[in-house]
Structures are given as C-alpha cells and as structure tokens.
C-alpha cells in the first residue's frame, strides 16, 4: 500500500481492528439486552431501556468523559482492572470500548425489532414437538432473528468505524495507539498541507461504509430468501 503513508495506513488498520472487536464484544450483551427488552417485563424496564439508549442521545464528549472518569488508572474500577492486566485509558482497547458503547444502542434496536417479529406461537409449536427451551432457541428463535443480528452487527461496525467524540475524549489521539480513522482525518485537517492525506482517508471511509451497507443488504436478502415469506 504505497499510496498510503505508514501513518495513514496505521489509522485505517487500527479503525478496522477497533470496530471488529467493538462489534464482537457488544454482540452477546446486545443479544441478551434485546431479549430482555423484547420479551421480559420487570420493574424498572423503562429506566433500563433509557440507560441502554443513553449513548445515542448524550453528547459523545460526555460519554467519553464518563468513561475516562470510570476507567482511568487512578479510579477504583480502572485500578482494579489494571491489576488484572486490563487497561483501557489511552490504549486501543479503550477506543474499542468507547466504540462498543456508542454502537450498543443501534445493535440492540436492530436485534430487538427482529425478536419482536418472531411469533411466540412458533416457539410454542416447537415446544409441543419436544424441543426444550434451549433447543427452541437454537432451532427456531435464533435462525429467525439472524437477519436482525446481522443488520445490527453491520450497523454497529459502521458506527464504531466512525466514532470520534467519545474516543478522542477517552483515549486521546495518539498516532499508532489510539488514532482511528476519524481522529486521523481530524488531525490531518489541523496540519497545513496535509489535505491530501485527509482526502485519501475520507475516500477510504466512504468505501468501507458503502461496502458494509451493500454486504448487509446482500446478506439479509439471502437470509430472507432462505427463510421464505411467512
């Protein structure tokens, strides 16, 4: 890749890595949260729902600030985690955490909608045919919400790729460490004469975003075809 400078290339690679881990890490939690919100009634559900969606409506800087307050090495939680060898502040892992939290509500929403579209009567039918709760989930519920999981993951990936405010607040903008694609574009725009670098990264951003969108469309069409109508 000699049309990208090492600095530009490292920003692209870092962003891909951050977005990949952020998506993978959020998925089990998002699945669980979506089930809770779609299928369960419990006291404080509205509050929980609000909490899940908070990163969507809070200014990203606020989310980043809250992360910094919680996970810096001086703070109790950050200290405890660093004893276990887990450090978020000013590391790429922190960028992944910030991206995961910002993308979480989008993923939950997509999965929740697909769970709500599953007819519980089909799950009852599976139970009468001898399937235990786990088997009902694996053979009926999960295959039917697969398009939602996929759409949610791709949405979350794209969001994680583009996350800027919370990331730069939480882990700063250290080239090679925490400088993701958007942070790099922002940094290049501050340097006179670096518009070329910024422009190349902008093009890459657009290509990745479009690619994700097209992939998600194609996959969900294939799954929808496999599942068939009604």
């Amino acid at each position, binding site marked *: 890749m000699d049309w990208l400078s090492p600095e530009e290339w490292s920003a692209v690679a870092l962003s891909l890595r951050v977005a990949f881990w952020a998506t993978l890490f959020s998925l089990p939690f998002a699945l669980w949260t979506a089930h809770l919100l779609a299928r369960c009634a419990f006291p404080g559900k509205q509050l929980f729902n609000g909490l899940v969606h908070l990163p969507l409506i809070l200014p990203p800087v606020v989310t980043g600030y809250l992360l910094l307050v919680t996970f810096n090495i001086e703070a109790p939680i950050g200290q405890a985690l660093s004893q276990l060898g887990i450090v978020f502040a000013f590391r790429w892992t922190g960028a992944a955490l910030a991206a995961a939290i910002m993308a979480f509500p989008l993923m939950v929403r997509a999965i929740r909608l697909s769970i709500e579209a599953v007819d519980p009567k089909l799950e009852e039918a599976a*139970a*009468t*045919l*001898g399937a*235990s709760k786990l088997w009902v989930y694996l053979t*009926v519920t999960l295959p039917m919400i697969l398009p939602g999981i996929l759409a949610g993951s791709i949405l979350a990936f794209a969001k994680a790729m583009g996350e800027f405010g919370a990331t730069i607040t939480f882990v700063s903008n250290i080239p090679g460490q925490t400088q993701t694609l958007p942070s790099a574009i922002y940094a290049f725009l501050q340097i006179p004469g670096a518009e070329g670098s910024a422009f190349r990264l902008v093009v890459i951003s657009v290509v990745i975003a479009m690619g994700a969108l097209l992939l998600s469309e194609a996959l969900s069409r294939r799954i929808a075809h496999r599942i068939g109508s009604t």
Partner: protein
Amino acid sequence: MSFSVTLQHRFDGFTLEAQFEAPKGITMLYGRSGSGKTTIVNALAGLLRPDAGRISSEDWVMFDAAAGVFLPPDKRRVGYIFQEGRLFPHLSVRQNLKYGAWFAPKDAPREAFDRIVDMLGIAPLLDRRPGRLSGGEKQRVAIGRALLASPRLILADEPLAALDDARKEEILPYFERLRDALEIPILYVSHAGSEVARLATTLVVLENGRVIRQGPAAEVLSDPDVTPMGASAAGVMLHATITAQHADGITEVTAGRVPLLLPQVGYPVGTDLRIRIEAQDVMIATERPRAISALNVLPATVAALRMGAGPGALAQLRAGDNLLLARITRRSVSALDLEEGKEVFAVLKAVSIPRTAIGDQRGT
C-alpha cells in the same frame, strides 16, 4: 389408551370446570367460541397451567395439581395440530416433518416417514418452504408433523377453521382415516356441526366453561336438549350402509333398519357411512303424504318435544333404530297435535343431504 381430564381454571372472570374422558378415536370438544375449548387443549399441551385438576392416561401423569406435577410441553409428547398450521418458515417441509422425531425418545413407537408422507400425499412438497404452500397443503404438513413426533395424544384445535369449504373437504378425509387407524386418542376442537357429524366418536359439549353433556356422538347429537350452537345448527348423525346404486344416480342405504335414498355416493355397495341430517331439513306429516317430490318418507314416532323460547320447537323422532331431529314451529306442533308417542311421518328431501354431509367410516 385413554386420557382422563379434570380441570379447573379461572381467568378474566371466566371459570372453566371440565371433566371428561378421551378414549381411542376422535373426542370432539364442541361448543361456541369462548366456551373454553382452546383453554382445555392448551392445558393438555402444557401451554397453560390450570389452577387445579389432573390429566393422566393410565400411569402417565402429565398434570396433577394436588401432587404438584406439571410436565412442560416438551415432555408431554402430544402432537398438536394448530388452527394456523404454525409450520416453521425457515425449514423445508421435510425438516418440518422430521422436527419432532428428532426430540422423541429413542424407544418411542415411530410412524414410518414414507408411509405418513404417502398417506397425506405430500411427497411432491418435501423440498419446498411452507411459505410457498396453499392453506390445505400447509395443514396436511401440520398433520404429518404432529403424527411423526411419536405422540401419545393428538390435539387438533379447529384445524379446518382457517380453510375455505373446498380445502375443508380436502382435509376431512385424512382425519377420518386417522380416527379409524390410530390407537392413540385424538382430541379435536370444533364448533362446526358438519365436522362433528363426520368425525366425532365421542362428543364433549361445552357451554360457558362447563361440560353439559358427553357420550357417543350419535347419542348426544340426537338429544333435543343439547344444542350448543342453537337449534338452527342442530342435526343428527346416522350410521348407514350402502345397499344399492341405482341407474338414475340415486344411492340407497340402510340406516337403523330404515331405507334411505341419497344423491349419489361414489363408494361400493357394503361401504359404511355416517350421514348428517340437519334438523331443519326434516318435515313432519301426520298422514303419509302422496304425490310429493321428497324421496324419503319414513314412518316415525315422536320421542320427545322441546319447545323453544321463541316460535321454534325441536321434535325428536324415532324411525326404526334411528333418532332424528326435526326443527319446526310451535304453531305446527299445536296444528298437528304433536305429543310424545304420536305416530307421524318424517319427510326428508334426498337433495338436502349434500355430499359434504356424508362421511366414510370404513374402520369403525
């Protein structure tokens, strides 16, 4: 095998209190919507936990409130045929059919896959998705799926209600065959008199969550005091045997020592049938009518009379060994001086018995 059911359940100001037996053959839960039929079926499937009662078959206890026994649906081995089919849209027809067998215990008696597929005529559909099937095809697959799960009991909750008349005619013969071929009981929910007459072995009549009558289908249907769907839907069921096929397209049968003439029934002489005769198709004459187009004029005795609250009345007539119901007006009752024991003639037009009211009963 026979199931004993005792249930009590209260919800939304409605109380269900039912006790009945479901022996081999089709036990039909018959009553208006809201009489508690689906609640009973769901309790048997384990989809609903009743407040009190017991559901058992010999030493197999599925539910016993007093003993704290409640088997979850997946441990009950019931084959539930739902009104809307409820086929899995993401699986092929073949996978749908094999779904239950996969979870059935290894030592459970199994129906041969190919035999069921042949019987239901669904071999050409095996590789298709349920979304591409017609209503009748879906319901046949749903029947197959329930049968192939090695059930100890079949539950069918208005399995024909979502189908048009032509599709109903397509599915009814399969239930007739199951009734006569299966050793396990079938509990079938319906509010359609024609299904009851063609399919029911045993009838359990429900009204407002209570069993108001249960017994052999022919006996219960001929009782003028039991009309859960109203007098206009009353009708009896007769067992008959074909005795002759006439050249002009008339089929002659004998039912309870009485000859009856019907529009052509395409089965050979000697075939056993069950025939539904609706109460509103039967007229009563006190003298034998002459020069009348109706082909069936049967000497009969008035066995019971039930006066309705409005202008109507139901007369129970004994003709040979049969009981018929005739829906007439109270004015006719007084004009003809009808009373129990009076000798009359029951008049029945052959064409008032449509082909759909005649069922095949080769096994029973």
